[in-house]
């Protein structure tokens, strides 16, 4: 990656990264959220850009270590917006982003705690009137207020998009992995705390939340009038073939058959 080639491009670029406290999927410990950390990594690789971290939540000490691990990635401070417990963070984020006026806002696709609906970037975009792009894999270039980015699609595909700044972008899990968090900088980093009026999320208070139940496995239902078909479906081995078998063929004939299948499936480019 030509880091130094980029440095002049992004000078004066203001990037805000919205970070949240994640939850380790196995140990359930608070950690830096994976996609948010990737967003921070992406912002840091835009060399020359000024990166600010924004976090809005209840001020509690349990999550301090998790937030500090973002600081350990090489950032001086986190802008911490204090909110009451059970508050909707979107209005507070809108106010602070208006004040900050960044050109680019990066964040993870969805949070690892709470509702985790992935709606925050869309709500912010609607409130601020900025375009939003989802599932970023890389930022290719930022020139004259237009960002060229790669969007991650399923099956490892990528789509190139151009978007006019200021914009909000969510970062996909296929973006480059976040760098390690260093202990010393994490301890030295500071929280720039300020309070903001909390808007309570009343709807959420009505919901019942419980640990995830295992989803019932779908049964294979065979709807057939004939008993023989039903029996065959129930007794048949799942992996009984029915495939085509070519033996005693020359390699060329075999290759031709495989080629025909690959072409029919459309995997040959």
């Amino acid at each position: 990656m030509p880091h130094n080639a980029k440095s002049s491009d992004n000078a004066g670029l203001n990037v805000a990264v919205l970070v949240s406290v994640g939850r380790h999927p196995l140990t359930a410990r608070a950690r830096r959220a994976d996609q948010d950390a990737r967003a921070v990594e992406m912002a840091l690789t835009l060399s020359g850009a000024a990166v600010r971290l924004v976090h809005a939540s209840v001020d509690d000490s349990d999550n301090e270590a998790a937030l500090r691990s973002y600081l350990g990635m090489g950032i001086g401070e986190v802008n911490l917006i204090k909110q009451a417990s059970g508050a909707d963070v979107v209005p507070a984020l809108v106010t602070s982003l208006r004040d900050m006026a960044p050109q680019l806002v990066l964040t993870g696709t969805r949070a690892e705690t709470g509702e985790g609906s992935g709606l925050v970037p869309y709500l912010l975009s609607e409130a601020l009137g900025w375009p939003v792009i989802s599932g970023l894999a890389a930022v290719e270039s930022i020139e004259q207020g237009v960002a060229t980015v790669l969007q991650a699609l399923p099956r490892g595909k990528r789509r190139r998009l151009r978007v006019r700044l200021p914009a909000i972008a969510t970062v996909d899990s296929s973006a480059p992995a976040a760098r390690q968090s260093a202990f010393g900088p994490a301890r030295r980093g500071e929280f720039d705390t300020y309070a903001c009026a909390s808007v309570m999320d009343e709807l959420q208070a009505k919901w019942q939340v419980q640990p995830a139940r295992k989803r019932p496995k779908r049964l294979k239902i065979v709807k057939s009038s004939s008993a023989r078909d039903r029996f065959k479906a129930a007794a048949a081995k799942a992996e009984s073939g029915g495939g085509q078998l070519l033996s005693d063929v020359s390699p060329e004939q075999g290759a031709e058959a495989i080629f025909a299948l690959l072409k029919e499936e459309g995997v040959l480019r």
Partner: protein
Amino acid sequence: MSDIIRRDPRKEWIARNRLHPEHLEVLAELGGGASPSEWMGPNGLTRRNPHAVGFIGPNGIKRIDRSGAQQAANQPGSRQAQPKDTRRRVEIETPAFMVAVVPDLPGGRLSSHDRDLLGLARQLADADAERPGAVLAVIFGEHKESVFGEAGVDRLLHMDGEEFSGYLPEVRIAALQSVERELAPRYWLLPDSPLGGAELGRRLAVRLGERPATQVWQVEADADSDTGWRCTARGAAGTSDITRAMPRVALALAECAEPVSETRHAAQPVELTQALPEVLGRIEDMGEVAVDPASVALAEAEFILSAGNGVKDWDGYHHAAQVLGATEGASRVAVDDGFMPRDRQVGATGTWVSARVYVAVGISGAIQHLQGIQSCDKVVAINLNEGCDMVKRADLAVIGDAGEILAALVARIERYREQQQENRDAA
């Protein structure tokens, strides 16, 4: 020829009576001119053909009916009973309300996720038999699907045009907003899938000012809630279940409901009366980017060329993968022997792959490996051993030396590429 079966009761009676002097002739006649199962040989010995005894029953099994009662059914003119379409035809003329569904249509066809979602929409629409709702499917751009009605669609709104071919979420949202204004569906259902439904649904919900339920996996009737429905949705990265009243916009996961199978619907085309508004998109689609297949994670690769113990010419294999544009995979043996890196291992200890096409070269198919390729659509096996498990699993199995077949395949594909190049130059 008429389809009416002509029966000759007298001949049937002779066929049943084994002592009748004309028994064999009549049997042969009724058997469609097939050779009789028993006849007198030239030396006066009775000869039997056990294969000619009996008839093939309607289910494809050979039946021997000593009574002869079934003989008439064995006439050459008799047809196999056609499997009749027993699905009920449902037409909803004046729906009480609409349930709008925006399917993903990957590759222009309804995916299983889309079908599940349409099943959920039917569940919401058909709850009150007195006042049924209609399921409205809103689709964008070109499609190849022909069975919307069988998937449970009553009304089909097809928005075709240049502007819907690429990735332009802002244009699509504006179009969906027009649908909301004109048809005012009671519910909006979208698939919560990375193929586009997740993003479109969130954009739509925010634009409509609704708070959607995301990652919904169950919807149940609930008299206590305002809408009469309660939904269960995954929250916190799939570690919690949120139970709440069903909102107007819901983004549902796969297998949220059973797909429609018992009814056929009209899929009547509908049109919007007003023209769609012009939208100036701020996001510009520059098209898909060619990616290096080697850099694609094995779990999400579309096309995998996997090598096992049968591969001897490793340079040839890597070359073949490069020419095919396939992601490389390996069986455990190939990894243990040091020919392939550990992160390329497919199977129980390695990666569970979901490729559309999986080519197994010289892999015999241990059960751990077959587990790893469960969700692959098409499996091609190249192997020396005809009896191995991979050949049984494969949709296409070629028996022969892996190196030679790969070399021939590479030559074939290079020829194909050259032809394409020539066509392009000529054009």
